[in-house]
């Protein structure tokens, strides 16, 4: 899949603002970003459902203007919020979708892949959220697609249903299909994707394997803590609004500590990206003690794509 200089505007919003992308065969590629970043617009342009204002799309060596019929046969699509007719059964729905494709897998196989055997005679209206999502996945699979588009496949699912769906995507990956998925869950992208593009405001702001992107944060680990002062802060009439306790700490104090790569404060919580956790943490403790500060909270975790996004945009993914 090849995208070149893609642009699309809706009314006064520039949904996609100049996007170039290449996805190779057999790859699981993730488009990551907050709501409104342009992920869905991008994927719908790729699916031939939206025409871009500018730019070209090439899929499997074909494009939408000349090879649409052929492309529809060879790709599988799962849209964000399709509600299948509630009064058809799982099997009837899949039989219907199977009939649209010249080649494909037997309906029984798609039911098995989506683990809906017990529900094959149940009406769609009676399925749980996770089962509906797996049905949507199955309708995308009945045509035995070479290229599979999944738009936020796990949004709104409970953790167990999400894990279930991840296993399903894993299987499809093993089978060698090319998969392009969008998500705003960082852990999902880390778990499933070979490569990830992070989008924000219609632009791609980072591209690489999850490991590469995490490495750009600088450290391998993130240390988070909040501090309080042992000294009573000077309460003067000049600064009644600002929080005197937190003003005491200076960013430079932390970045001076060997092993600390960067520092930022988010909602009163200091976040340091750190390499060599075991030697750096004692130094942080020592530095705070020397200042007469004490910690009210302390935790560490391995750097994630979430930290990459925060570092690139200064915002949390779920701020929106």
């Amino acid at each position, binding site marked *: 899949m090849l995208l070149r200089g893609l642009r699309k505007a809706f009314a006064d919003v520039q949904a996609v603002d100049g996007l170039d992308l290449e996805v190779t065969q057999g790859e699981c590629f993730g488009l990551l970003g907050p709501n409104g970043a342009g992920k869905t617009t991008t994927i719908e342009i790729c699916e031939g459902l939206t025409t871009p204002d500018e730019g070209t799309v090439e899929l499997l060596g074909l494009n939408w203007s000349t090879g649409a019929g052929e492309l*529809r046969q060879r790709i599988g699509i799962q849209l964000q919020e399709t*509600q299948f007719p509630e*009064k058809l059964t799982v099997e009837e729905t899949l039989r*219907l979708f199977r*009939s649209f494709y010249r080649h494909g897998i037997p309906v029984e196989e798609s039911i098995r892949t989506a683990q809906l055997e017990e529900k094959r005679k149940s009406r769609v209206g009676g399925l749980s959220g996770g089962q509906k999502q797996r049905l949507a996945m199955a309708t995308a699979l009945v045509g035995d697609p070479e290229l599979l588009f999944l738009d936020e496949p796990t949004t709104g699912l409970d953790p167990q249903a999400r894990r279930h769906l991840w296993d399903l995507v894993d299987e499809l990956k093993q089978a060698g299909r090319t998969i392009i998925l969008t998500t705003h869950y960082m852990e999902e992208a880390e778990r499933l994707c070979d490569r990830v593009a992070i989008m924000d405001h219609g632009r791609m702001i980072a591209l690489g394997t999850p490991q590469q992107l995490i490495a750009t944060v600088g450290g391998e680990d993130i240390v988070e803590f909040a501090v309080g002062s042992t000294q009573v802060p000077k309460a003067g009439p000049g600064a009644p609004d600002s929080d005197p306790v937190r003003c005491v700490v200076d960013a430079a104090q932390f970045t001076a500590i060997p092993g600390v790569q960067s520092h930022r404060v988010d909602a009163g919580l200091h976040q340091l990206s750190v390499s060599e956790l075991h030697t750096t943490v004692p130094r942080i403790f020592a530095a705070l003690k020397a200042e007469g500060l004490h910690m009210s909270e302390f935790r560490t975790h391995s750097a994630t794509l979430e930290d990459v996004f925060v570092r690139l945009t200064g915002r949390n993914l779920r701020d929106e």
Partner: protein
Amino acid sequence: MNKLEQSSLYQLTMARFRLLAREPEAIFWIFIFPILLAAGLGIAFRNRPPDVLPVGATTTQLTQALAADKGLKAAEMDEAAGSHALATGAILLLAVEQPQGVSYRYDDTNPDARTARMIADRAIQAAAGQRDAVRVENQLIHETGSRYIDFVVPGLLGMNLMGSAIWGLGFAIVEARQKKLLKRMVASPMPRWQYLASFLLSRLVMLVIEVVAFLGFAGLVFGVPFRGSLWQLGFLCVLTSMAFSALGLLISSRAKTMEAASGLMNLVMLPMWILSGVFFSASRFPAVIQPFVRALPLTAANEALRANMLQGVGLNHLVAPVAILLAWLVAPFAVALGIFRWR
């Protein structure tokens, strides 16, 4: 799986059937409701013996003269009581004794009162000794085909064909669009024309059941006549249903919500319920709006259905209504295909 089951047109049409059959309300409105309506109207307008008209008179002599006619029921009352009875509709006519003869008080815009005037006058003149100049004889005929139920059944058929086509198509398409199912369908390699064709095909099959059930009921219970060719009647039903399906498609081609679609459907159907001669003849409307009334598809459908069923008129004499229905089939269909919103 055999070949038929693999065909997407077959699968799409079957899906339409299943969805309709699993919707109890749809079954009621399409099959049961028209039969109930016909039954209700048939009972309300059943043929009764001719009405006896109530009249009043101011003297015993006049009252006796009036009561002598079987068509009248006469009561004696003074003028004041008579005026009150007239005003409240208790009597249709008051005969007042005058020095030089009799005067009749009645409302000449009321057909029953005019009839009462004729019968009363005849009775009073006969009592006074008038004899008929010409000998007359009455032969009474109560023929099927001229009753109200005979008039209203083709009208109800036309109305039902309109309702089931417009509602059936309109709501299903708009619902699929609202639930993003339409978008999902066009994201698959499904040929778009087949999606629309599946609606028409399922409509055709439902039509057979719908028409046979309704007309069978009307024929068996009320003895409504079928004087024209049944094949031509079948053709007219199909043409009517297809024309309204095209209209339903046009209505639902852009609407994004059920509310918008439902408003549009009422806007389209309400004038036809009133103007197109379902319950009373469309020719009662003023001449100024007749061209408009005649051009409505339901007017054309009702006219053709009535001509076939009640008068046995062949298609070769129904060119005008058939042409109007064809125009309503082709034009909305073409426009709808052009502006249809697939997502």
